[in-house]
């Protein structure tokens, strides 16, 4: 059953709304504050504005301690859609940026800007968009984002994201239900600022282009209903709809069900069924932002509960410490058995861990109950399976089965019973005769499941990393082997060419290489180069010569960077130079390795590619390599002629240790470095060739 637009309208016309299953009827307790006008209160001596006040992430901080800010000046700037900026609630000095406990059930700290008001209330320059109807909607949406507007009903979802929904919208629902007991902030706002809310609705209506606007208000707020009706009477497609007073009628999904008979699909959004919903407070803020250019820097907060001698609704600047507001409302500690403040209503609100916690954009109520005012209990008894919870559940879960499985830590079963569809409204725990804190069990189970999922993902990632590393090592090994094979081929070719080619320079290089080879110990310090196959002696010597030539060149370059005469420097200096050279070589080698593989995923593709290349163009490759080797040899000879200094030093380093003898550690190190440099170069060369 999915009622279409006309059916929904017919239903609304008939005046008989559907209901949602379950629900409870807690005592309203709204008359403590509902008849008192919203009042302005004096500023707190310090305001702590949390950078993140909503679903999403922190925006980028753009003020610094010591800076004077004006009222409405942004403190952060949005860099991505889920980062909504926050603004200075008043003019004053930024006295610090640091972590502070914020309004979150976990009691965790978040980054806050501490602002000391200067009392001047000096506004920054404001840019209203009164002609919003003629503007590009994107510009209006951007203005809403820059005004820092997030949903003010509960979750604090960024408003501009909702308004830029691309799905066709049939119903724009304005939520003025306010089903939580005690809270009258929206009620008062509608009574006193109906016209401004209407203006905000106009803006949203312009952006969303719905077929109909529904303003839903519980039937226990007749004055708010009347006010909104008057404000909207000139608009044919605006309808004020009275809904049954039943908790949680103000829940997004429940209200949609009541108004339209539709259900938001699991894992879906209201926009998927052609509905968008905004809180009346959000509409007010949108009107402020568009018609005045004012960002969201204050909101209506209901201060209520038996422990307050002067309850009422106040305009609270964002960042005002809770203690300041409670004191203004005449908080009497002696009326409470233990100090307790609930942010939000008695059904879904959470107890604050500290009274310094600042008011944020979603803070609609501060409730300080007197002793025995609320019947909360830690007197948990055995479940008698009465299913009162199931009868109360607005989303038709089986809370009792969820409880059994959550208690037994059978989390897979809780998911089977749709634990994650629980909206944590608290109706089940409200009716439970055994006084079981059901919602608490569900939250715990949800947290555990999320933790397990995270761990699973982490483990999978670790496994991926491990396997990628294994693949990389494997690939590198194969690459080395390939390199050696190619080198071998090159040497072979070179030797053949050497037979026919009578170039003096090559001959000289070969001769020198031979000589050096004879002098050099045969041990290869690197595990990667195993040239002990039965290759002709001369070829290995050629290879060694090439390698040494490269090493020398590298060392030369390194020493050239150093100023002064390197020949006469102390051994430590030499050592340092060599290290520098080695570092450069390593860096190059690493870069080469990176450029070879794809940057993040180390797939073995490049290797196979190189295999192909060598397989097909083996001849050309070989020639190229020979040419390269010759060129390098020439270059080396050239440099040898030109600069005697570094070379001498280098040759000293490489020539020194006799074969297989326990040489001095320093010499050994130098030799290793030289070899590493050579390898790195060769690798790079090979790569360049492959390309």
């Amino acid at each position, binding site marked *: 059953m999915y009622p279409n637009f006309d059916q929904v309208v017919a239903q609304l016309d008939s005046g008989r709304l559907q209901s949602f299953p379950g629900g409870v009827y807690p005592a309203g307790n709204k008359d403590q504050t509902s008849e008192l006008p919203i009042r302005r209160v004096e500023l707190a001596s310090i305001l702590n504005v949390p950078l993140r006040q909503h679903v999403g992430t922190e925006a980028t901080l753009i003020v610094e301690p010591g800076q004077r800010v004006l009222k409405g000046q942004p403190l952060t700037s949005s860099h991505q859609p889920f980062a909504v900026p926050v603004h200075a609630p008043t003019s004053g000095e930024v006295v610090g940026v640091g972590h502070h406990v914020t309004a979150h059930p976990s009691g965790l700290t978040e980054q806050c800007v501490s602002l000391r008001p200067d009392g001047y209330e000096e506004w920054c320059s404001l840019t209203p968009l009164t002609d919003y109807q003629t503007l590009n909607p994107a510009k209006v949406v951007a203005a809403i984002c820059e005004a820092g507007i997030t949903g003010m009903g509960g979750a604090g979802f960024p408003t501009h994201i909702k308004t830029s929904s691309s799905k066709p919208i049939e119903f724009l629902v304005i939520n003025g239900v306010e089903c939580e007991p005690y809270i009258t902030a929206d009620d008062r706002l509608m009574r006193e600022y109906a016209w401004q809310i209407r203006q905000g609705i106009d803006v949203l209506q312009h952006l969303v282009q719905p077929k109909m606007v529904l303003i839903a208000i519980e039937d226990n707020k007749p004055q708010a209903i009347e006010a909104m009706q008057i404000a909207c009477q000139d608009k044919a497609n605006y309808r004020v709809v009275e809904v049954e007073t039943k908790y949680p009628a103000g829940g997004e999904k429940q209200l949609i069900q009541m108004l339209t008979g539709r259900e938001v699909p699991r894992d879906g959004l209201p926009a998927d069924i052609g509905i968008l919903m905004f809180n009346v407070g959000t509409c007010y803020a949108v009107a402020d932002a568009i018609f005045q250019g004012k960002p969201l820097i204050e909101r209506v907060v209901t201060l209520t509960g038996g422990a307050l001698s002067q309850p009422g609704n106040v305009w609270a600047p964002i960042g005002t410490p809770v203690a300041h507001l409670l004191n203004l409302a005449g908080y009497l500690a002696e009326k409470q058995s233990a100090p307790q403040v609930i942010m939000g209503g008695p059904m879904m609100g959470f107890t604050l861990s500290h009274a310094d916690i600042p008011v944020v954009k979603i803070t609609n109520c501060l409730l300080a109950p007197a002793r025995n005012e609320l019947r909360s209990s830690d007197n948990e008894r055995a479940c008698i399976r009465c299913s009162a919870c199931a009868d109360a559940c607005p989303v038709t879960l089986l809370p009792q089965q969820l409880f059994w499985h959550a208690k037994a830590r059978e989390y897979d079963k809780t998911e089977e019973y749709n634990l994650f569809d629980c909206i944590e409204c608290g109706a089940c*725990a409200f009716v439970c005769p055994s006084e079981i804190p059901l919602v608490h069990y569900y939250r715990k189970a949800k947290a555990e499941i999320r933790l397990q999922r995270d761990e699973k993902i982490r483990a999978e990632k670790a496994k991926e990393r491990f396997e990628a590393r294994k693949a990389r090592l494997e690939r590198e090994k194969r690459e080395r082997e390939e390199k050696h094979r190619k080198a071998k081929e090159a040497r072979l070719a070179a030797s053949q060419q050497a037979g026919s080619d009578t170039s003096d320079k090559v001959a000289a290089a070969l001769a020198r290489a031979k000589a050096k080879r004879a002098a050099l110990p045969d041990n290869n310090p690197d595990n990667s180069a195993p040239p002990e196959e039965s290759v002709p002696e001369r070829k290995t010597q050629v290879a060694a010569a090439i390698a040494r030539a490269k090493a020398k060149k590298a060392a030369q370059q390194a020493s050239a960077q150093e100023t002064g005469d390197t020949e006469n420097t102390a051994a430590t200096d030499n050592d340092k130079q060599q290290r520098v050279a080695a570092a450069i070589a390593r860096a190059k080698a690493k870069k080469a390795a990176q450029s070879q593989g794809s940057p993040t995923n180390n797939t073995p593709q490049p290797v196979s590619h190189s295999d192909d290349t060598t397989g097909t163009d083996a001849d050309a490759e070989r020639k190229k390599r020979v040419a390269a080797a010759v060129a390098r040899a020439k270059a080396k000879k050239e440099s040898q002629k030109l600069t005697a200094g570094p070379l001498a030093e280098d040759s000293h380093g490489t020539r020194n240790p006799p074969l297989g003898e326990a040489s001095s550690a320093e010499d050994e190190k130098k030799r290793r470095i030289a070899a590493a440099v050579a390898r790195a170069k060769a690798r790079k060369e090979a790569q360049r060739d492959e390309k």
Partner: protein
Amino acid sequence: MKLTLSSSPHQRTPRDTGQVMRLVIYAMLPGLALQWYFFGWGVIVQAILAVLAAIVTEAAVLTLRGKNIRHAVSDFSAVLTALLLAVSLPPLLPWWMTVIGAVFAIAIVKQVYGGLGYNMFNPAMVAYVMLLISFPAAMTMWMPPQTLAASTVNLGDTLSVIFTGFSNAGYDVTQLRTDWDGVTMATPLDAVKTGLTQGLTYSETLNMPVFSGAFAASLGAGWAWVSLAYAAGGLALLRLRVINWHIPVSMLASVVVVSLLIHLINQDHYASPLFHLFNGSVMLGAFFIATDPVSASTTNKGRLIFGGLIGFWVVIVRTFGGYPDAVAFAVIIMNMAVPLIDYYTRPRTYGHHSHVRSGKGKRP
């Protein structure tokens, strides 16, 4: 200022488990009173015996289990179990049988399974069946309504019979059950059952004296009024939302439908739906026994199945089985089926299997 923390919701209804149990007990009182009116002091004595035995047993077992006694005894669940057992027992049952029944209900059927909330079976009904099977003679010694009895049994006689086996005048239970004509008074259910075996038709059986004095021809005097009183108490529980309508309605409807079908097959042989409804413990069962939350089904659809099948079994066993009444058997049979019923009757959660395919618009 450091503040105390607690988990939402911070508000609850004032109704706790103890209050729920007390409400059920209060709702039983009219029926209990009529039982006393029609059948004498026996039911009161049995109730006191059973309640005392149940509370002592509950406390003893909880001590052995290392649990908080006051907490558990104050929830009145043991009292309710004992009362449900007591009103099902013949009023002059020897005291030790009642005590055994109550101890068995609490210690074995309830606490061995883990105490309140964990027992699979209805403790009162299992204890009743245990006694019925163990002491079949004593358990069927029902007294005639005092309006029909030859001798009224006063409190002293009742106590004497229950504790010694004989009244002050030296009569035993069998003698006390005899009416003016020297015929042993059976319950209406017994009468119909034995009448059929003696070759009487159903309508002939209804001419027996036990079927007089009630508000309808086929109803036993006393019994029908007691049933009505329990029905009234049950309606009060419905109104107070202590029980859901699903089980009583489905069970009674099922009794009516099944017995009507059988009655229509052979009206001479099989009892009418009205007879089934107002005799025996159908009303008590529908409102007080089958609705025991612990051992009943917990989903609404499941409750309809649970209650419907209890009604079915009651009529089937009454009509074709060896026992005159069958509420206890039917309830126990269906208790066994509860996990299965619950598993297959889970309700559809909001937003699941919706007609609109869920979009990809999952919030990032």
